[in-house]
């Protein structure tokens, strides 16, 4: 990453792994035979603290785990739940895979895009409140359509329920 391309927030980067967070990671290190096995947990810690995983944060994870920043980026981009861009205060994941599609998931997704003002998948609403993602199978096919709002797993969402559900997320 070139310094010239770094955003203001990245040039003033504050490390995630200090104090209690570093202590928590060190406790985890003892539970696995290799440091690298703590890669996914460490990335979760970064996302928990910062909301997303910047390239600078990937470099920090690389340093504490003992691999290259490029390797960490390869891992981060493999998994759909890690955000490589800033996201809204609330991230909504909507399942539209076959079983949910059979039960009208596309209509749920359209309604969520409209109600949040996001309009497009992956885009954050102008008020910074929501980012909406279409995801593959959330594993609750009998309770179509499931959505994941941050860490809240909500079942049986219909277009009619959307507006009421979103009110709880500011």
């Amino acid at each position: 990453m070139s310094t010239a391309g770094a955003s203001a927030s990245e040039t003033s980067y504050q490390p995630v792994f200090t104090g209690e967070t570093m202590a928590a990671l060190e406790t985890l290190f003892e539970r696995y035979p290799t440091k690298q096995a703590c890669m996914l947990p460490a990335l979760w810690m970064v996302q928990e603290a910062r909301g997303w995983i910047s390239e600078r944060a990937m470099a920090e994870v690389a340093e504490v785990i003992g691999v290259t920043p490029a390797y960490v980026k390869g891992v981060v981009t493999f998994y759909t739940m890690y955000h490589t861009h800033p996201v809204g205060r609330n991230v909504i994941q909507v399942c539209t895979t076959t079983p949910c599609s059979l039960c009208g998931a596309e209509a749920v997704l359209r309604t969520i895009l409209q109600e949040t003002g996001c309009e497009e998948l992956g885009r954050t609403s102008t008020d910074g409140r929501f980012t909406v993602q279409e995801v593959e199978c959330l594993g609750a096919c009998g309770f179509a359509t499931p959505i994941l709002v941050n860490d809240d797993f909500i079942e049986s969402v219909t277009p009619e329920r959307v507006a009421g559900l979103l009110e709880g997320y500011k």
Partner: protein
Amino acid sequence: MGYPYPPDEKETVVLSQYFGDEGARSYQGWVKRGGYQALEAALAMEPGAVTDVVKASGLRGRGGAGFPTGLKWSFMPKDSGKDHYLVCNADESEPGTFKDREIMRWTPHGLIEGCAIAAYAIGAECCYVYIRGEFTEPLAIMAKAVAEAYANGVLGEKLLGTGPRLEMIIHRGAGAYICGEETGLMNSLEGRRGNPRIKPPFPAQAGVFGLPTTVNNVETLAAVPHIINRGADWYQGICLGNEKSTGTKLYSVCGHVQKPGNYELAMGTPLEELIFDMAGGMPPGRTLKAVIPGGSSVPIMDAEDVKGCLLDYEGVVERGSMLGSGGVIVMDDSTDMVYQIYRLTRFYAHESCAQCTQCREGTAWTVKILERILGGHGKESDLDLLLDLADNMTGTTICVLSDSCAAPVVSGIAKFRSEFDAYLSGARPPALAAH
């Protein structure tokens, strides 16, 4: 039970007995319901004898492959001097399947007990429970239950205070279907991209961290305490069809049925009873068009295939499909088969780890062709092209994701060709904006 509905009289309730019973979630509640007695009984046996009981029960892997569980355990080396690992595969992500989620939500200690017995049998002092990242509720419930099990002396330095050491660690995935494939899971657990590995070596020789490993599905492990408690003969006796398929199986029923949910059935129960009686059949006025009986990766059955089909490993194969993970996706006569097959292939294209060319290119190309057909710009030769592609995507890659994408295309064209033809001839208006 047919959670979230009361149990149907045709169900054989074993694993799902406490689904919906919040009292069963805590350590105390589990012990009150007879929990951890099986672990105590297992610890009084030699590890090899535990494996023999599971072998004799006929239990087969419930994650999809149906490999005999006891046999898998017996592949673990004896006296190798190396650390052994047990990995519980809780990455449930096969479209149509949502049974492991309920096991973890309602009976977390039952799963911990099953893991502890399996770890004892294979000589593992460490068990990782790999739970998909999206399962926030099961993750929280399992983490709490594991902490309780440590606090009550079940896990830790000595299993139940008398046995060997067992550490149990909940590991959160981060969104990747392929991490449900056992070698992809192991790479993910090691902090890598979840690319599947070439076998051999098999996990029992060189698994996670290069050490002997057994990977078992949640439902498989949850069945183990019942087998220890009630005996191999009892489990083997739960069999209405082929004697190679024994015990109960949880079926997740979804799609166009009136009572979607999980139903626990004796092996060999007719598929029609599950769909029409227990799950309530189609919405009023609708008829059955197609069923994908074992999670999205298995061939599609039409209404004719469903007639007289027995739900066990052999019975479903006889009807041209597979039992897989037991995720039953039901489609009625309102279904646009071409669109739904396209939707399935989009899943596989998204989830391909991109390691093998046939899969990376094949899944994406399949999607493009189906988009063209649905957009009203299909060519006469497209169906042959799809079948040729499917042929190149089957049996040619490290794992079976590519095969799984090809299966619905091949069976879909074979059974519902007229629906493809309707798009190709223009008899049916385009379902997608033209690409």
